[in-house]
């Protein structure tokens, strides 16, 4: 019984590896043949689940323009994206964080292509009678110093902190911009995706968490203002709302062929002004500031 299962899995693994090798050789072969006018080949982008819906959408629309091209987008997490692109198994590694911020990645080998901006807002269950909060209070809630909504002007209700998994891109962005150096969030319930967080906060009384802007429009949750600043596109563009991050597509060295064309297409006005905002991200062309890996913000 057990042996059969192992056998079946084994055969599966062998077949999968075979396909992977076959695909890889094919991809490189066709990439070499590719010419700018008529693109063929395969691009595999893997990584961040926050960037996945956008990358899929842009991929589809790029394929419509270049029928000879196959663009595959997979999830797996920012960590997987960065490590897979660094060892050359995928063409593009999607990440929510700068490669420099991720331990174990040789960032010097990778080339960064920023494709969009994502804003993140703290959210609470709608039964919480608080709509504005100071940054200090938010820090204290996530580090466990404040445990009741009474302490921040709400009703007498226990605060249920819901976090994202350690190492998740959204969590790193949130902690980097909300917590000060050396602080770490209290151990609490952790969930593995924006979707689950949305569902759980909307059903758990007194719950607080944080979500990407694209997920804010749901019943049962509401976004909090921080120091009277509303979490919206306009405030991210001039950095008055500081919890935002770039979505990165990393390539190993300078991209060429289909990969290069795809990344170029991602930066066009057509994509940045239409597809990007439609899916709840913020276009790079709209940003009035830039930020580097160390967190330094400069006006454009």
């Amino acid at each position: 019984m057990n042996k059969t299962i192992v056998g079946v899995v084994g055969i599966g693994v062998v077949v999968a590896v075979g396909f992977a090798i076959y695909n890889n050789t094919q991809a490189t072969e066709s990439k070499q043949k590719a010419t700018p006018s008529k693109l063929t080949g395969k691009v595999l982008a893997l990584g961040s689940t926050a960037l996945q819906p956008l990358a899929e959408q842009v991929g589809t629309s790029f394929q419509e323009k270049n029928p000879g091209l196959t663009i595959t987008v997979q999830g797996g997490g920012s960590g997987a994206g960065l490590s897979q692109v660094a060892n050359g198994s995928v063409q593009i590694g999607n990440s929510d964080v700068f490669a420099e911020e991720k331990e174990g990645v040789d960032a010097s080998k990778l080339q960064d292509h920023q494709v969009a901006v994502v804003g993140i807002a703290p959210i609470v269950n709608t039964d919480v009678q608080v709509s504005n909060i100071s940054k200090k209070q938010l820090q204290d809630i996530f580090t466990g110093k404040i445990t009741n909504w009474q302490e921040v002007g709400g009703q007498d209700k226990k605060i249920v902190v819901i976090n994202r998994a350690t190492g998740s891109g959204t969590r790193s962005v949130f902690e980097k911009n909300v917590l000060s150096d050396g602080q770490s969030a209290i151990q609490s319930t952790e969930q593995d995706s924006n979707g689950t967080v949305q569902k759980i906060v909307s059903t758990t009384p007194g719950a607080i968490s944080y979500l990407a802007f694209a997920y804010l429009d749901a019943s049962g949750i509401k976004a909090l203002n921080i120091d009277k600043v509303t979490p919206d596109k306009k405030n991210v563009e001039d950095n008055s709302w500081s919890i935002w991050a770039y979505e990165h597509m990393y390539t190993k060295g300078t991209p060429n062929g289909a990969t290069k064309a795809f990344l170029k297409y991602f930066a066009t006005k057509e994509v940045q002004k239409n597809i990007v905002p439609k899916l709840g991200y913020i276009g790079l062309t709209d940003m009035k500031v830039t930020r580097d890996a160390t967190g330094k913000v400069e006006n454009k």
Partner: protein
Amino acid sequence: MDKITQKLMQKSESTKKDSLGRAISLAALSLIVIVVISIFTFVMSRGLSTFFHDGVHVKDFLLGSTWNPSVINPQTKQPYIGALPMILGSFIVTFLAAIVATPFAIGTSLFMTEIAQKRGAKIMQPIIELLVGIPSVVYGVIGLTVIVPFIRQIFGGSGFGILSGTIVLFVMILPTITSMTVDTLKSVPRHYRESALAIGATRWQMIYKVVLRAATPGILTAIVFGMARAFGEALAVQMVIGNAALMPHDLTSPASTLTSVLTMGIGNTVMGSLQNDVLWTLAMILLLMSLVFNLVVRAIGRKGELK
């Protein structure tokens, strides 16, 4: 004459088929062995590199109670890698689920084999088989939308925790234990029952004093199999247990298991980093535990053979 000698000296068609069949089964077997060995070597080499390459003490890992691999403890200059909360979480949900499921499983299978054999075979058997085949994610979704709110209403808090995990696992392992117990009870020889009844035992006395006694090793094996399934279950548990790497101090506060931490974290870490290695070490513990469960099953089987 020569023709006959030739024919006799040559391999016949059937002999050829015979050796072909042998070669095919041998190839299949070696493939399986290779796969098993490579899985073991891979998990072991990655899992052990936490201790050899990253210099983590085994004691700190197994007995430390703070889990936060991306944060460095300022006093010891080591990351927080105490896996005890998850190890305890895994064992607690597994044992609780087995303890709750066993009486139900034994009751159901006694009903099916001793009390209402016809109805048991016609109605219960297909139902149990159906339950075995339900994918774990379905149990998880039901747990998240039914059990978690239910627990929240009764006990307060967020509803996530060991209790919710136990309930989901109980439902998941119940059919496994039941169907294996049914098989064991069926294999108790008919003359045991007949002798018991012949010397004047009631049906209950016969079940309790003879059938269950004779079937004990088989029932224990069934329970261990159920526990192995519960211990390795990832998805359904992850959805209801709350995934907080905290020491479990009561049944309704969020906790975590080895599997839930593993599935949550593996995509967010980079291969070769300490954060990734410690997850492999958790995988190694899971693998070793499934080995232990297998050995236990064998030991029970050998000790309790009917003579």
